[in-house]
């Protein structure tokens, strides 16, 4: 379980000569907007009528970062608790995990915290973990999770943290770009920390990991 780069082999590609691949998994409670975030990033759309995800869905998106092509293999999982036991199949070997919660629902934040704990225990030290508070467009009326609470938790646990909105598009692409920078940077020189940081969590990235 310590080889996070199992799927990150590079191969010759058209743009810039090399395409790096990265497996990314979306986790989080039911109905927090995992699929919508993925669709916003991949297609730039917000589907007004989206179907609940059963099992898992798969999407890809290739972006250019630091002069290099990076192809995200995105696994969008089902949120309901009874699918939890299947999650390891999806996050195994992932370079990045985006744990999503709904900033208007405190329960989903608690669930996100337990997802982060599980990921820290079960995945490699250098797995990029992102804590994403979705549905920020509704924050002014319905917010239930204070930004500060989430930021503090993210800093303590060494996560990238972002509040975003799949509906308005706020901070979604930026979040994925951040992940991309981190992955590409790491791949170029695994021990340096040239990735872009939002919350300065890099120094804590090895805390709490039992691998």
């Amino acid at each position, binding site marked *: 379980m310590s080889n996070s780069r199992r799927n990150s082999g590079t191969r010759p590609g058209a743009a810039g000569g090399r395409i790096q691949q990265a497996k990314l998994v979306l986790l989080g409670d039911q109905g927090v907007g995992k699929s919508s975030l993925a669709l916003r990033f991949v297609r730039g759309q917000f589907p007004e009528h989206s179907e609940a995800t059963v099992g898992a869905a798969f999407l890809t998106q290739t972006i250019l970062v630091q002069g290099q092509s990076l192809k995200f293999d995105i696994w969008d999982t089902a949120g*309901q608790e*009874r699918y939890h036991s299947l999650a390891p199949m*999806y996050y195994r070997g992932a370079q990045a995990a985006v744990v999503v919660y709904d900033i208007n629902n405190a329960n989903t934040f608690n669930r996100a915290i337990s997802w982060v704990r599980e990921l820290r225990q079960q995945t490699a030290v250098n797995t990029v973990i992102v804590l994403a508070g979705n549905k920020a467009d509704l924050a002014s009326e319905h917010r239930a999770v204070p930004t500060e609470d989430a930021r503090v938790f993210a800093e303590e646990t060494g996560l990238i943290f972002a509040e975003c909105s799949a509906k308005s598009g706020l901070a979604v692409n930026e979040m994925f770009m951040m992940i991309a920078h981190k992955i590409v940077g790491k791949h170029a020189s695994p021990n340096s920390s040239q990735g872009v940081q939002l919350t300065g969590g890099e120094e804590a990235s090895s805390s709490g990991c039992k691998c």
Partner: protein
Amino acid sequence: MNHLCFYSLLMGKESKMILRWADITKLEQDNNMFLLPDSIKVSTRDASHYFSMLLHSNETFSIMEQLANLAMKQLMQEPGFQEDKSLVAKLKSVKKRRRISILRRDLDAKARSEKFRLAFQLPVTEKLDSDMECTLWAPYNKQHIGGRLYISNNFMCFASKVADLVKVTIPLRDVSVLEKIDNSVSGSLINKAILVTTKSKVNFTFSEFRNRDLVLEKLSDFISMQPIIRRYPALLSMFAGTENVEPSAADRAREAAKQHMWDLNFAEFGRGVSMYRTPETHQLVIRGIPDCYRGEMWLVFSGAVNEMATHPGYYADAVRQSQGHPSAVTEEIEKDLYRSLPEHPAFQSDHGIGALRRVLTAYAWRNPTIGYCQAMNIVASVLLLYVSEEEAFWLLTAICERLLPDYYNTKVVGALIDQGVFQDLVYEHLPALYNKLDVLGLLNMISLSWFLTIFISVMPFSCAVNILDYFFYGGAR
């Protein structure tokens, strides 16, 4: 019942062994062992044991096999729901060794009942009472067809000896007249016959019984025990005509042609639960049921119509009792109401959403071990497009409890098992594809939703409902 015990007293040395059925992973019968003729090998996760010199090796083996399977089933079902209480009680009473033959008989009966229910899509409570050889007069091709008649508490069913030639299910509640006849019908000679007339005035002639009087006696006994059922008027599907897309002329023509074929089939083979199910019916189903008959046929083929008829008022009651108790389950349902077939106008209206909410909540109330599982919302919403709320509830019940047991429980075990089987089949029949997917580690990760939504989520809607047509007709086998 839950344990396998061994006790020996050999030359004053006593040895005892107790195994839990649930821990057993493998049972093997072995006759080739040099030292231990007629032995049975029992493997558990961490050890294996040999039993030899059994008095009735074959018999013991089959009992052990069935008990182990039963234990497996209980493990999967999680305690509480659907346990066959009477059998468990009976088994508990079987303690003494000389009563092992009773145990064996009960297990055999259970296995036969299960096969019978599967073959005719009957409610899980049906127990096979008896079966006997006879012939059925097929008015549509003027022939006597040889086969077996099966009688249970609430049904009489016939299956031809030649597989799939014809199948008939007659609910005893529908029988209005039962009589002996000895003269000829339509000019052909019949022997020792019984004429069954249903309330919809359809006749079935069974003949060549070995012991006609006994059959008659049994049938009339069971019929006299049938509860009197209030008839509910057939409800029209509430979403009919809400589709925004106007079907093309070609589509309409195809529908009309299909409908015509079905009309012919109804005229010749009857309509409803006790229609003759012949290879022609099979062919028609494969070509797809026309929209106007789809809901009705789903109910008939899946047998859900029986469960609904024998539980009048159940759904209304379930809805009443399940309303107004917010819980973790209802919260999960709420989250998915607007995410079930969201493109369809029916589920953008309060009418459709309300119906879906009631069906799912009522089902969660009926069966707390399943509660609500994502995927049921999608299945239920498709059902609701073709049948009324109450009918959708019973179809969902048939799917969750008979057609796909263990699919939607808290660990989605059933679906995972089918996925495993699917993977093996791909390996066997499409090795090239298998190798490709295996390298990518994909097969397991993508196929789960196919099974859980009965392929609704991965196919164009028009194909997916055809799969459902056949799924309800042929069962999940």
